[in-house]
């Protein structure tokens, strides 16, 4: 067991799976000698060779399409999309193809591919290296979408994703790559896809968050506890689709107040679905409006630093939303 950040944990998860299963391979833009633009795959080509760690042409539809074809013929490909924003050309291959191989063939063909994609606003990234892309995919039966936040979870869930017979979109928030380190078990630690995690128990408010927003929320929550004695329960979905409704609903039924935070543009984000589930299935337990917080409805974070910082939901805004709920 060693202390690792998110980036290292994902790297290690990949390396371990490649060591234990010859059919696991990595493909994507600049994943080979360069080790990826974020260096997640650094060193893998040296260890596993240029075929199993393959630099593809700049063609996302090809990356996913060929991963599908590889999976059909015995491989377990892990495709890297360099930035989540550039997953768009592969949209067809993901939602119309990979997600449907099993269903449309009445169970004859599976499509065990994993798609890694860094997402989220980052300084200097501008409109096209910043998007929260979850909502595009969290309505696609046949696909699983995971977005773990903490290193140990990420490593274990990446392994679950690779072993899963279904296509899994694995989202990594860029600003959390090096944000914290924690103990990451060497092997054998398992986190199933589809299970949320309760980070902190609380009685007053339930907050659902993931990615960078989870870190911010966890900070704010400690402050609220210390300063106001408000105890917030924090639930991280970890899997965004299909959602672990039960854990979320159990929490709301306990606290009676609910806030979901996502860094995505508010309207049409996955927070809408989560809020709708709560509003439908925990209605009788609710003591306050089902609340959401997200980025403003503008295309994405801007390049210019002041604009970017204004775009991302801040600790202040999160605190205000929680306080409003607490006072309700």
């Amino acid at each position, binding site marked *: 067991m060693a202390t690792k950040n998110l980036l290292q944990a994902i790297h290690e998860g990949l390396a371990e799976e490649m060591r234990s299963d010859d059919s696991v*391979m990595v493909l994507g833009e600049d994943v080979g000698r360069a080790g990826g633009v974020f260096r997640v795959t650094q060193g893998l080509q040296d260890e596993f060779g240029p*075929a*199993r760690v393959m630099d*593809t*042409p700049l*063609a996302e*539809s*090809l990356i*996913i*399409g*060929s*991963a*599908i*074809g*590889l*999976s*059909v*013929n*015995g*491989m377990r*490909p892990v495709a890297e999309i360099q930035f989540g924003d550039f997953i768009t*050309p592969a949209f*067809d*291959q993901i939602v*119309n*193809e990979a997600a*449907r*191989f*099993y*269903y*449309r*063939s*009445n*169970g*004859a*063909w*599976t499509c065990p591919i994993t798609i890694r994609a860094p997402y989220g606003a980052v300084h200097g990234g501008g409109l096209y290296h910043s998007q929260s892309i979850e909502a595009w995919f969290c309505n696609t*039966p*046949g696909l*699983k979408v995971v977005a773990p936040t903490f290193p140990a979870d990420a490593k274990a869930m990446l392994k679950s994703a690779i*072993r*899963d*017979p*279904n296509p899994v979109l694995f989202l990594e928030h860029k600003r959390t790559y090096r944000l914290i380190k924690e103990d990451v078990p060497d092997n054998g630690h398992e986190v*199933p*896809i589809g299970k949320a995690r309760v980070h902190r128990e609380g009685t007053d408010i339930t907050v659902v968050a993931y990615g960078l927003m989870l870190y911010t929320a966890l900070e704010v929550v400690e402050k609220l506890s210390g300063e106001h004695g408000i105890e917030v329960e924090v639930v991280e979905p970890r899997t965004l689709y299909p959602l672990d409704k039960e854990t979320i609903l159990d929490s709301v039924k306990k606290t009676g107040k609910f806030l979901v935070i996502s860094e995505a543009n508010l309207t049409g984000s996955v927070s809408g679905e989560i809020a709708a589930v709560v509003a439908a299935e925990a209605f009788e337990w609710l003591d306050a409006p089902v609340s959401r917080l997200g980025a403003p409805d503008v295309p994405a974070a801007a390049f210019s630093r002041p604009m970017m910082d204004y775009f991302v939901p801040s600790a202040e805004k999160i605190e205000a939303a929680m306080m409003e709920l607490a006072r309700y």
Partner: protein
Amino acid sequence: MAIRETRSRYEALGLSEDDLRRLHYHMLRARRVDERSWILNRQGKAAFVISCQGQEAAQVGAAYNLRPGHDYLYPYYRDSGMTLLLGQTPRGQFLSLMGKKEDPNSGGRQMPGHYSDRALNIVTASAPVGVQYPQATGTALAFKMRKEDGVVLVCGGEASTSGGDWHEAMNFAGIHDLPVVFLVENNVYSISTPAAAQVAGSIAARAEGYGFPGHAIDGNDVLAVYEAAREAFERARSGDGPTLIEAKTYRITAHSSDDDDRRYREREEIEEWRLKDPILRFEKYLAENGLLDEEQKEAMDAEIKAEVAEASEYADNAPFADPEDVLTGVYAEV
């Protein structure tokens, strides 16, 4: 003299008389299944028909090179001539056509023509045109990585070359010398749009730009198709990389049973192409070579028609998919 020359043609291709009979059989069988589908459509039993008619030579000539269950096929919706050759059955086709529970491709989920067969390595086909090409290159790459001699045959109409997926796959196949054969069945139309408004330059000529051979061939000549495909399969098996084959052919029927082709093409044009029907043409060749007389032909046809009638009957009587079937099988079990 003329006869000796043509005879030496099939011999030079390494084909036996039995091979020729099988080529003929598979073309005719595909045609009869297709014809029956239109009858079922007119009877109100088949909501949708999409045809292979006119393209049987291209399909049978190419797929004859596949080793079922070893090589992989990514067919497109007209390729019933291929899937039947590989081992799918007329029964299966009609079950699929009528959306019956036993539909081997999808259990009634997909429209007809969306082939799938795990045992035969026919990869589940889709509707968005062109998506099969990148997938096929991935499947070919797996063969190459494991140093196996498998080949992937991937097919589409000429309009399937207009989308980006075709190009991305051609480029990738060229970079890695992948064991994949691209077969474009250029049947002149994409629904109503003629090839001139669909394809700039020449499809076959494009292969060179990707560093591998491309051949434009007479797609209504089953031996020409077989020959080009055999060479392509050999190239692929021996690690020399991909080949593009553009089989020039013609869609005899409307695009589908939902289409009225009188809106966009002349009857005369179709009649002209009917004279070039690949089955008639091959029958003439066989007859000229003394390999087929009227009687043999009738016998084979009768046998096929009986099989087709039985299959159609079977499918007609088979139960529909259950309503609740729509709910199951979204995810494979972990």
